């Protein structure tokens, strides 16, 4: 018996080692690799940004930088970084999700990360708009049309998705303005959520539900996601509806200090995020339908991005920390509303 076990173990280990050897070669040569852990809709954006930055870095430093990308719901990604996903940079949908990393593991990320880059470390902004089917058959013009009976609304779950939380708060802002009180806002959002047949976990999941699976009359989503869906699925199939009021979304970026220290990538990671603020990257950002910070680039793309009445998280909701605790924490407003709808 002892012989058998030893032989088997050795054979298995050899097999495993041989196979692991085959799959090696992760880090290409003398170059440097950055892991960018991002939220859902930025896949196309960072594909371009990464190529642009790699060219710059190669020209300036003679070093090849390659990228590994991970995309998913913003809250989920934040959680993964806290649980040990070794991101060099976190580029998430809202500052709260990056704050959560710093709160859980201060050694991993400096809690004062927002002050390290211009514009509160948010290199671009976006907002929340509606996407409807061609010809707008349900005649959806503004938020109040979403709570009409028979209108099916697609939006992701704010517990897991970053975009979903922006959607929720934009709806709340409308309800509060229209009804004049917090109670009216809650009433409005309850009616809205009652019209939601599918709660996906992230923004991209909702988009495919609406666009690919043909479920729902209106998709509440990022402006960039709405533009992209239009572009990818062919012009004329969908229309963007800009509501009377929405929210200024500021997706944020940070170097994850603990991980770059471990990987020796601090310098290149910092340069990567600073590159996002250059006119060149800002142009890429605008072309991917995110609202650029650079005023000159913004002026060039003024026709793409209509001006609308935007509330902000800091002024109108007391910052993400307060908003998260009130609306999205366990037992918070969203849970209360959701429990009522299910009954």
């Amino acid at each position: 018996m002892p012989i058998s076990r030893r032989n088997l173990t050795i054979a298995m280990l050899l097999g495993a080692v041989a196979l692991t050897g085959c799959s090696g070669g992760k880090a290409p040569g003398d170059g440097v690799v950055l892991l960018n852990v991002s939220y859902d809709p930025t896949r196309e954006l960072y594909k371009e940004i990464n190529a642009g930055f790699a060219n710059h870095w190669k020209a300036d430093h003679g070093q090849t930088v390659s990228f590994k990308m991970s995309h998913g719901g913003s809250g989920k990604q934040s959680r993964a970084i806290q649980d040990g996903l070794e991101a060099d940079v976190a580029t998430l949908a809202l500052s709260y999700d990056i704050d959560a990393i710093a709160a859980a593991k201060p050694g991993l990320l400096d809690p004062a990360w927002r002050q390290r880059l211009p514009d509160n470390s948010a290199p671009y902004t976006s907002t929340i708009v509606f996407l409807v089917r061609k010809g707008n058959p349900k005649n959806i013009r503004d938020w109040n049309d979403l709570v009409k009976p028979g209108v099916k609304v697609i939006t992701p779950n704010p517990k897991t998705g970053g975009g979903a939380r922006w959607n929720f708060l934009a709806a709340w802002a409308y309800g509060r303005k229209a009804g004049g009180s917090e109670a009216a806002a809650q009433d409005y959002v309850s009616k809205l959520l009652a019209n939601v047949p599918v709660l996906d976990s992230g923004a991209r999941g909702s988009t495919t539900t609406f666009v690919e699976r043909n479920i729902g009359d209106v998709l509440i989503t990022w402006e960039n996601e709405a533009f992209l869906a239009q572009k990818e699925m062919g012009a004329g199939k969908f229309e963007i509806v800009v509501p009377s009021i929405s929210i200024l979304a500021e997706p944020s970026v940070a170097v994850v200090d603990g991980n770059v220290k471990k990987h020796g990538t601090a310098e290149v990671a910092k340069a990567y995020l600073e590159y996002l603020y250059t006119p060149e990257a800002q142009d890429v950002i605008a072309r991917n339908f995110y609202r650029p910070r650079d005023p000159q680039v913004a002026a060039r793309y003024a026709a793409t991005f209509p001006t609308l009445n935007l509330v902000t998280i800091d002024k109108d909701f007391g910052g993400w920390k307060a908003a998260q605790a009130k609306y999205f924490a366990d037992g918070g407003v969203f849970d209360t509303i959701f429990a009522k709808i299910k009954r």
Partner: protein
Amino acid sequence: MRNGATSESRLARAVIMAIGLGFFGLFLLMPLLVVFAQALAGGIGAYLDAIVEPDALAAIRLTLLVAAISVPANIVFGIAAAWAITKFDFPGKSILITFIDLPFSVSPVVSGLIYVLLFGAQGWLGPWLAEHDIQIIFAVPGMVLATIFVTFPFVARELIPLMAEQGRDDEEAALSLGATGWQTFWHATLPNIRWGLLYGVLLCNARAMGEFGAVSVVSGHIRGETNTMPLHVEILYNEYNFIAAFAVASLLALLALVTLVLKSLLEWRYDYHGKGTGH
């Protein structure tokens, strides 16, 4: 005299047949056809491009690697467990049998989360692992562990009824003739169970390669590095890259078809129906 089973009217039989076939066509055949139709929607060139794309190749390689580690591990465990349970009497035997079934009754997502709670940076063993620079979660080891967990029961479940039915006569005869433990296993036990074992391995492998939930939780979804084929399919689909998504999915579907054929061959070979009342 007609017996009860054939006494239904023709109409009833036709209706039952139609329901069965309709169900088969709608829920099994159609999706399979859709996968291949979508994969080939852009022509054979686009199909091949999608499969030889570096991230797709990395996903295929990782899937094979994970299966190549977790299947042998579960063969060893499955044989050992079935051997212990059917050839020996010891206290706690029924508890062991129950525990072997645990992965079947636990949701795969929960299986994945167990490993995050154990090995994640904030988990029980997280600080120790970080100190020694060992990465388990969001890397290949975590994905292998999660896969081993969800495929745990396949081999053992296949062997236990088979070996229980065969009893210990052959082994006792071998031992009484002076064979060592290893000889007994190799010459008496293994030949008796080989078809059942192959069958279990086949099911185990199919699940190992197709597992989504548990692996998704511990993967971290890094393109080209910690995406197995099922995860890569989801990513491609979410990127509006439908042809590529279905091309990779078609490989998984092919795997399923090959498994099905091999399974039928094995059933024919080791006379599944003669296996007893274990199933």
